[in-house]
C-alpha cells in the first residue's frame, strides 16, 4: 500500500491536561479520495485535523505524506507540503476585502491585480462566483466559505481538509459545494471531510473513519451503511428517537405584528415587518442561515430589545415595551444561542446561574434576599431531570461541556413551566443523544400546552419537531407552512436559495 497512499497516519496521540484528545489514531487517505471523519463533539476530530494542519504538535505517532515523513511545525509548513484547510469557524477578516483575505492565506501571493484575476478564473472554473473587491463583512456565510475554498484552491492542494463545512449553508449551497468537491476529487485532490451530518457523508464520501472518545472505533464505506447505523457507531450504542405525539392547538399565546427593528451590529441584519402567531401547544420552527436575524428576533421576543407599541402581544396583553423580567412574569421565557456569556455566566456556579432567570417564576427569593438553599435545590432538580453530567451545582458554568451546559440552560427554562418558550439553536454543538433528549423535552412542554418557538439552522431538527415552519431570510419572516409534506428543496428556496447562484442551480437541475 505504501507509496499509493497520499496521507498515512499511525499511532497518533495528543493529551491535554486531564484529557486525552487523541489516542493511537490511525488511517490512510488515497489521492482523490473523499474521506469522512465522523464523531460526536469531543470525540477528537478537531484535534486530529489541527495536528495534520500543523496547529498542534502530536505527543506521539507518525504521519506520512506521499510516502515521506510529514511533521508540520506550523500551518505554513503544512501549506507548503500541499495540505490546505477550510475552517469550521471561518478564519476570515471582515473588514478586509476578498482578495486581501485570500492573500493572507497564501505563502507567496502575487501582486493584488494578478491575484484578483486569478480569483476570478478559479471561481469561474469551479462555479463559485466571487468578486475579489467586495468586503468580506458584507458577504453571506456561503460566499464567505467560497473565499476560504478559493484561498485553498489557489495553492493547488493535494489534501483539502474541511471542518463542518455545511453547517452554515442553505441546501442549495450545499449542493454547489458538493459539486465543487466532486470535481476536485476527480482531479486527484483528496478531501478530508469532517461532519456529523450523516446523510451528507453518505452522499459525498468514499470512506469514513469513526472516532469516539479520541480513539478510532471503526472504518466503513458510508454508502453501505444507513444513517442510523453510522449514528450508533458514533455514539457507541442505541439512542432514543423523539416521540412526536399528536397535539391540539389552543388559543394564541404570542402574537407579533409588523415588527421592525434596526440592526444590532455593523454587519447585522435589521428585522423587517415580522408577523407571527404562536398558539398554545404549537411548536413553531424558524429556520434560516446564521446571521439572517435569528439573534435579533430572539432579543426582541425575550424583551432584551423593546419594540414599538402594539407589536408584541403575549396572551392577549400588550408587551412590546416590557423587559425580560416582566415578560417572564407573563409566562414568556427564552434561551439564547450563546450559552457562555448570554444564557449563563461562565464564572458563576450552576446554583447562581439559576438565579439569573429563575427568581420571577420560582420561589428563590425571600423578602428581597436570595434564598441560596432554594436556588441549590432548583439547580439539583435541573441536573437530575435533564441528566446534566456534572459533579454538582457548585461547579462553574464554564466547566461544563457545551452539550451539558445546553441541557442545563434549556432545563432551567423548561422547569419554570413557561407558557411561551423561545429557544435559539437548542442543540448546536450537542451530541446526538443529548440533542434527542432536549428535543423530547421541548415536545413534552408543548404537549402540556405551552407554545414553543425553535429557531435553528438544523433543518432536519425542525422537520422532526416543529408543527409549522417559517423561514427567516435577511430579517424577513416567511408565512408559516405546515412541516408535513414540506420538502428540503422548498425550504431551501424559502431560505433565500443560493446567493447569486440561481443559474448554476438551474443548470444542475436541467442536466
Amino acid at each position, binding site marked *: 500500500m505504501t507509496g499509493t497512499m497520499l496521507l498515512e497516519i499511525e499511532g497518533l496521540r495528543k493529551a*491535554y491536561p486531564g484529557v486525552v484528545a487523541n489516542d493511537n489514531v490511525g488511517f490512510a487517505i488515497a489521492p482523490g479520495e473523499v474521506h469522512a471523519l465522523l464523531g460526536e463533539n469531543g470525540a477528537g476530530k478537531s*484535534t486530529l485535523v*489541527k495536528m495534520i494542519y*500543523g*496547529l*498542534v504538535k502530536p505527543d506521539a505517532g507518525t504521519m506520512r505524506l506521499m510516502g515521506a515523513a510529514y511533521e508540520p511545525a*506550523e*500551518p*505554513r509548513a503544512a*501549506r507548503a507540503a500541499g495540505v490546505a484547510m477550510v*475552517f469550521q469557524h*471561518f*478564519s*476570515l*477578516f*471582515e*473588514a*478586509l476585502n476578498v482578495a*486581501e483575505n485570500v*492573500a*493572507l*492565506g497564501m505563502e507567496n*501571493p502575487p501582486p493584488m491585480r494578478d491575484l484578483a484575476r486569478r480569483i476570478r478564473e478559479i471561481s469561474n472554473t469551479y462555479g463559485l462566483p466571487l468578486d475579489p473587491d467586495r468586503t468580506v463583512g458584507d458577504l453571506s456565510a456561503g460566499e464567505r466559505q467560497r473565499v476560504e475554498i478559493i484561498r485553498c484552491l489557489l495553492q493547488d492542494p493535494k489534501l483539502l481538509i474541511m471542518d463542518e463545512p455545511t453547517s452554515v449553508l442553505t441546501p442549495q449551497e450545499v449542493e454547489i459545494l458538493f459539486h465543487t468537491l466532486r470535481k476536485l476529487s476527480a482531479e486527484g485532490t483528496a478531501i478530508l471531510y469532517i461532519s456529523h451530518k450523516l446523510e451528507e457523508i453518505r452522499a459525498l464520501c468514499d470512506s469514513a473513519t469513526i472516532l469516539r472518545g479520541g480513539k478510532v472505533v471503526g472504518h466503513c464505506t458510508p454508502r453501505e451503511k444507513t444513517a442510523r447505523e453510522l449514528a450508533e457507531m458514533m455514539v457507541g450504542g442505541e439512542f432514543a428517537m423523539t416521540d412526536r405525539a399528536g397535539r391540539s392547538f389552543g388559543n394564541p399565546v404570542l402574537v407579533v405584528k409588523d415588527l421592525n427593528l434596526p440592526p444590532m451590529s*455593523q454587519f447585522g441584519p435589521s428585522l423587517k415587518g415580522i408577523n407571527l402567531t404562536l398558539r398554545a401547544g404549537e411548536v413553531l420552527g424558524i429556520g434560516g442561515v446564521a446571521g439572517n436575524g435569528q439573534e435579533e428576533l430572539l432579543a426582541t421576543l425575550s424583551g432584551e430589545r423593546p419594540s414599538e407599541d402594539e407589536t408584541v402581544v403575549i396572551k392577549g396583553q400588550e408587551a412590546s415595551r416590557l423587559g425580560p423580567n416582566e415578560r417572564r412574569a407573563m409566562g414568556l421565557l427564552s434561551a439564547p444561542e450563546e450559552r457562555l456569556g448570554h444564557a449563563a455566566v461562565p464564572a458563576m456556579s450552576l446554583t447562581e446561574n439559576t438565579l439569573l432567570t429563575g427568581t420571577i417564576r420560582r420561589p428563590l427569593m425571600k423578602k428581597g434576599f436570595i434564598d441560596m438553599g432554594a436556588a441549590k435545590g432548583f439547580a439539583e432538580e435541573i441536573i437530575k431531570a435533564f441528566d446534566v453530567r456534572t459533579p454538582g451545582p457548585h461547579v462553574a458554568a464554564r466547566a461544563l461541556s457545551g452539550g451539558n451546559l445546553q441541557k442545563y440552560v434549556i432545563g432551567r427554562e423548561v422547569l419554570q413551566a413557561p407558557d411561551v418558550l423561545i429557544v435559539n439553536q437548542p442543540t448546536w454543538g450537542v451530541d446526538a443523544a443529548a440533542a434527542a433528549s432536549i428535543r423530547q423535552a421541548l415536545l413534552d412542554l408543548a404537549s402540556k400546552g405551552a407554545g414553543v418557538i425553535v429557531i435553528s439552522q438544523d433543518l432536519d431538527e425542525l422537520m422532526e419537531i416543529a408543527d409549522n415552519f417559517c423561514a427567516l431570510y435577511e430579517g424577513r419572516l416567511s408565512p408559516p407552512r405546515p412541516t408535513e409534506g414540506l420538502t428540503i428543496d422548498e425550504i431551501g428556496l424559502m431560505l433565500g436559495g443560493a446567493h447569486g447562484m440561481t443559474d448554476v442551480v438551474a443548470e444542475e437541475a436541467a442536466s
Partner: protein
Amino acid sequence: MTLGGIDIIVLIATLMTASTPVLLAATGELIAEKAGVLNLGVEGMMIMGAVGGFAAATATGSPVLGFLFGAVAGAVLAMVFAILTQVFLSNQTATGLALTLFGLGLSALIGKGYEGVRPPPTAKLDFGPLGDIPVLGPIFFSHDWVVYASLVLVALTWAFLKFTRAGLVLRAVGESHDAAHALGYRVIAVRIAALAFGGACAGFGGAYLSLVRVPQWTEGMTAGAGWIALAIVVFASWRPERVLIGAYLFGGITALQLQLQAAGYAIPVHLLSMAPYVITIVVLVLLSALHRHGAQAAPADLGRSFHASS
C-alpha cells in the same frame, strides 16, 4: 501678509513645527492600534523621549543622537507595556494609564539636573534659492529636518498599510487575532513590533518638543499632547492621511493662540491656551459625526488580549 495683527505666513510656518510632535506620536499610535493594541501610555512615552533625547543631546552635543536616543527611550517604555500586556496579558487600559503616570514621574526624576540647560541647536535645512520664493519659501522651505521626516513618515505609513504584505498582516492581526493565528501568523510578535514602533515615534515626537520646539526641559512639558495624539487616531478613523489633518489642525490652533496672545488681544490667556484642545476635539467629533462609519472603522480586535488556546 498680515490679518488682524497676525502674520499668516509665519502662522502657517509655525503650525508645521507646532504639529510635528503630535503628528509623530499619533502616527506611531495608529500603527499600534491597527495591530489591535490600545496603548494609552503615549503621554508617558513622549515625555520619556523628551527627557531622554534632551539628556543624550546635551551629553553628546549632537541633536541627531538626541533624537535617536529619545526614540529608543520611548520604545523601551513601550516594551514594558508590551511585556505586561502581550506576555502577561494584563489589562491594556489600566496598563496604559499606569505607563503614562510612570513616564511622567520617572522623567521628572531624571530631568531634575537638566532644568535651565540649553540643548545644542537643530539647524533649519538650507534649500538655497527655494527658501527665497515669496510666501512658499518661508512656509515650506524654512524648517528643520524633523518636520520633513515626520511628513515622510506619514506617507510611508500610509503606503505600508495600503500596499505591503507586512502591512496587510498587521491589519489582519488587528482585525481578528484568532483568524490570523489560525493562518499561522505570529500575533504576539506582530503586536510587540507595532508597539515598539509606536513607542519610538512617541519618543521621537517628545524629543522634538524638548530639543526644538521649546527648547529646554521642564517637568510635564508634553502637557497632554499624548492624549491629543490618541484622540486624533480615533477621530481620524485609523487613517494616516486624516491623522495628518488632525495633527495640523491641533498645531494650527496652538500656533494661532500663541500669536493672538502676542498680538495683545483681550482674550483671557487661559481660554486661549485651552483652545487647541477644545477645538481639536470639537472638529474631530463633527468630522466623525459626518462620516458615520468613522467610529466603526476601529480594528475589530482593538484592546482585546490574545491568548493562543491550543
